[in-house]
């Protein structure tokens, strides 16, 4: 167990113990790159027999069923089910808006990414954590095996500088960088003036098993504001002038509810999993309860 794991505030030992027993589940079966612990559609090397086929020239002689050759004097090749690894991507929105709240939404996102990543590492999946601001030239590390936990945590700890990359561009870049299929967990607040639809559309095109986790802070759920205010957007310095009143707050609540409902609706219609969480929801509750219910972990 790497020492940084215990020191890390992202994951506590108790939580690690709980997460060890879990595994990531994909509703789709993807082609892995390396041999992993999941059965693949492909035939390959494993202990599980799949089929026979005629020997053709060039086949590996190690897979020739010699017993059958002795009985039938024909060369048959034994085929086994291939066991492959799972590609598990976590894409964290690191825009400035994610740095709000206590704990910040970003911290919450990192905790969630660490938890899910750890599950993946334990099952020898191919875990890749990236941020929206990750440039093409400098992609995030690809991690495998429990031993990589410290590297993952180290990487996550390194994410603290907000990068104001529009959601759509960040997702697009991610898709360009990672061509493989797998599970993608997008952790974001979806607060993009340009809208989240185009970004999610990129993910749909990749035919990934997409989980959209929207993280909001309690301050956003129930804003504690008074008086005549000039609200400054921390990302683009956009200004909204409001005079806080009960009807305005009521209207905000309605808008927020409509926004959340819209996002859920959009995702559900397109076969994506949507989960809304707030930063005051503990990550273990989120993983062990909500995501388990959604079928991401088992």
């Amino acid at each position, binding site marked *: 167990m790497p020492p940084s794991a215990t020191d890390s505030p992202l994951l506590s030992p108790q939580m690690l113990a709980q997460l060890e027993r879990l595994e990531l589940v994909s509703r789709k079966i993807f082609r892995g790159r390396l041999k992993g612990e999941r059965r693949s559609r492909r035939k390959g090397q494993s202990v599980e027999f799949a089929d026979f086929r005629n020997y053709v020239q060039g086949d590996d002689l190690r897979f020739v069923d010699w017993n059958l050759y002795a009985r039938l004097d024909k060369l048959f090749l034994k085929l086994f089910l291939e066991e492959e690894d799972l590609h598990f991507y976590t894409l964290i929105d690191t825009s400035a808006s994610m740095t709000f709240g206590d704990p910040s939404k970003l911290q919450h996102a990192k905790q969630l990414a660490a938890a899910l990543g750890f599950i993946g590492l334990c099952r020898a999946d191919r875990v890749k954590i990236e941020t929206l601001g990750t440039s093409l030239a400098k992609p995030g590390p690809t991690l495998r095996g429990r031993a990589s936990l410290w590297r993952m945590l180290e990487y996550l700890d390194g994410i603290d500088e907000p990068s104001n990359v529009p959601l759509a561009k960040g997702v697009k870049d991610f898709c360009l960088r990672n061509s493989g299929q797998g599970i993608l967990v997008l952790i974001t607040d979806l*607060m993009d003036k340009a809208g989240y639809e185009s970004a999610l559309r990129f993910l749909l095109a990749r035919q990934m098993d997409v989980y959209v986790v929207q993280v909001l802070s309690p301050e*956003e759920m129930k804003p504690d504001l008074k008086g005549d205010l000039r609200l400054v957007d921390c990302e683009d310095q956009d200004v*909204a*002038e409001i005079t806080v009143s009960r009807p305005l707050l009521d209207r905000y609540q309605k808008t927020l509810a409509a926004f959340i409902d819209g996002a859920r609706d959009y995702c559900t219609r397109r076969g994506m999993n949507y989960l809304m969480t707030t930063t005051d929801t503990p990550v273990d509750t989120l993983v062990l309860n909500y995501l388990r219910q959604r079928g991401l972990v088992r």
Partner: protein
Amino acid sequence: MNLINALSPLQWALLLAVPPAILSLYFLKLKRHPIEVPSTYLWSRTIEDLHVNSIWQKLRQSLLLFLQILVVVLAILACLRPGFRGTELIGDRFIFLIDNSASMSATDLGRTRLSVAQERVLDLINQMKSSDVAMVISFSDVQRVEQSFTHSRSQLRQRVNRIQPTQRRTDLSDALRAASGLANPGRTSEAGTNDYQVAEAMPATLYIYSDGGVPTVPDFSLGNLEPVYIPIGETAPENVGIVSFSTEQNQEKPSQMQAYARLENSGTEAVTVEVELTLDGEFLDAANVDIPGRSVRTISAQENASTNEDEGSGEADDGEAGGGMREDNLPGAAGVQFDLDHPGHAVLKLAIKEQDDFALDNTAYSVVNSPRQANVLVVTPGNESLELALSTSEAARIATVKIEPPSLLATKEHLADAEAGIFDLIIYDQCVPTVMPAANTMIIGGVPPVDGWSKGEVASRPVIIDTDPAHPLTQLVQMGDVKYNYDGFPVTGPPGASTLMDAQIGPLLVIGQRAGFEDVALGMDIVGKYSDGNVGPKTEWPIRRSFPVFVMNALRYLGGARTSYSTESQQPGTAVKIRSSLPVDQVHVTSPTGDVTTLDREAQNTFVYSATDTVGVYDTREGRAREVAQRFAVNMFSSRESDLRPRTEVVLGYETVEGQSASEPARKELWKWLLLIALGVLVFEWYVYNRRVYL
């Protein structure tokens, strides 16, 4: 409601610029507190629909703006100093004189004038500051201190509400003296015996609530009192009243009687009223009486003086008065006469059928009592002059005279009769009773044999110096021509006795009290023995005119004879002297309201009844008798009370106080209230701002 401009045009311009300024501040960008948020994404979408709303809608929804504008408008209104005419008290010491005389029961204001006056006084009491003190005096012809000086407004209110109307006349002088005694140093209300309340002599405001039908108050100085006269009543009330009603025996036909009444109309229009005469409640006669309206006439100074005595208050109108002439307007008057058969013992009631503003003077009563003769015993050994004086037809009409010798005095019958009191008067001439009888007595040439009476040394030729012209016994008795008296002695009466005739030797004729009776002692003989033993006249008095006058006075006064059929009407509030026809110790008087008062005998076999507060007929029963022995009537009969026109001024001693138009005008300011409301709105605005409530 009227407004006073408290600001200059420039100040107005500045003030009026405030509401538009507030409005423009709402249009201008507010100094908003910048705050960084994760994203304005949701906020922008939230306020998106607000942006599309018109600015007026935005303003309409701004409660704060509304409240701020309201505050400013209220402040502007306050600057206008709105106010209304009210009544306000000046000074810090008040005396409220409230008239509760008969005329204050007039209903020309829709309700009684007294209730209007009470309401106005209550208004003023409500305005009193806590440091103010006030007293309340009600007055008719007597004053009554309802409440002495006090701070307590509730007590004052209570006492003012307690004032009841009376049927008495108006006389302000008593009330003024009571008020003045408290306001002016060195004065007390009643000669130091009845100083009502310890109050430092300090200036006070004297509020007189009256209809002004008050006689002039002579010789009165207001001193520290600041009088304010508030007339109560409509300026042109309608009233027809009976101001006199009496019955007389018809001189030509003794079996008939005549009833006279005088009616006065205080209205300006001539009216015809129907009067109805009833006898013991049964209709007797009726008549229509035309009464002219109030007439304005110019009267001379002499008439003026006499009118003033009658009418009291100087009713000078602002005409061309001057040079001893003045204009006066008097109520129209008319008389009515009824002839009727002699009713005997009866009550006549005269009533005006028409209703007017003042009901009290629409009814008058007259009582016809049977005449009553005095029962007189003369005990004399022989007195020709006295017997002659008692044998006149006039004397025979008013008295039954019995003449007996002194030997009678010792008889049992006489002693019994004297003790039973069957005589009204016993005249002892040249003799003295051993026991004083239960009757008035006159002893000629002697003194009653009881304690207190004594005779001095007999002196010859007493010269009569003086007689008391005021006493009924010596009224019209001129003794100046009685030059010769043989001899006489000074008479000393018991304590309380009064001397009716003075000689150089001392009192010659003295009247003294004795347990409800009166004794008269004359310190000389009319007929007597000379020193040589002959009997003859001892004074020349009997040949003078004054002697029969004196004898008749004695019969009337000491005998208590009642000759007239009609009994004089009494004014409400006056004391009535009742003389019983039988020698009883008590009489019972039943008032028109049914109250029975038992009276004990006083001097002269009389009973004094003073509870004559109600107009009507009073029945008198003597002793245990059930029959009504006699009646007397109490009537208003006051021209001044019947004249309902509120006087414009009252004369108080040397000052004429003009009436203030119903109530003293004072400006009631509203700006304080407006500012208070503005403050309240401001507090509410603060609350709204802080609580974010949106009503």
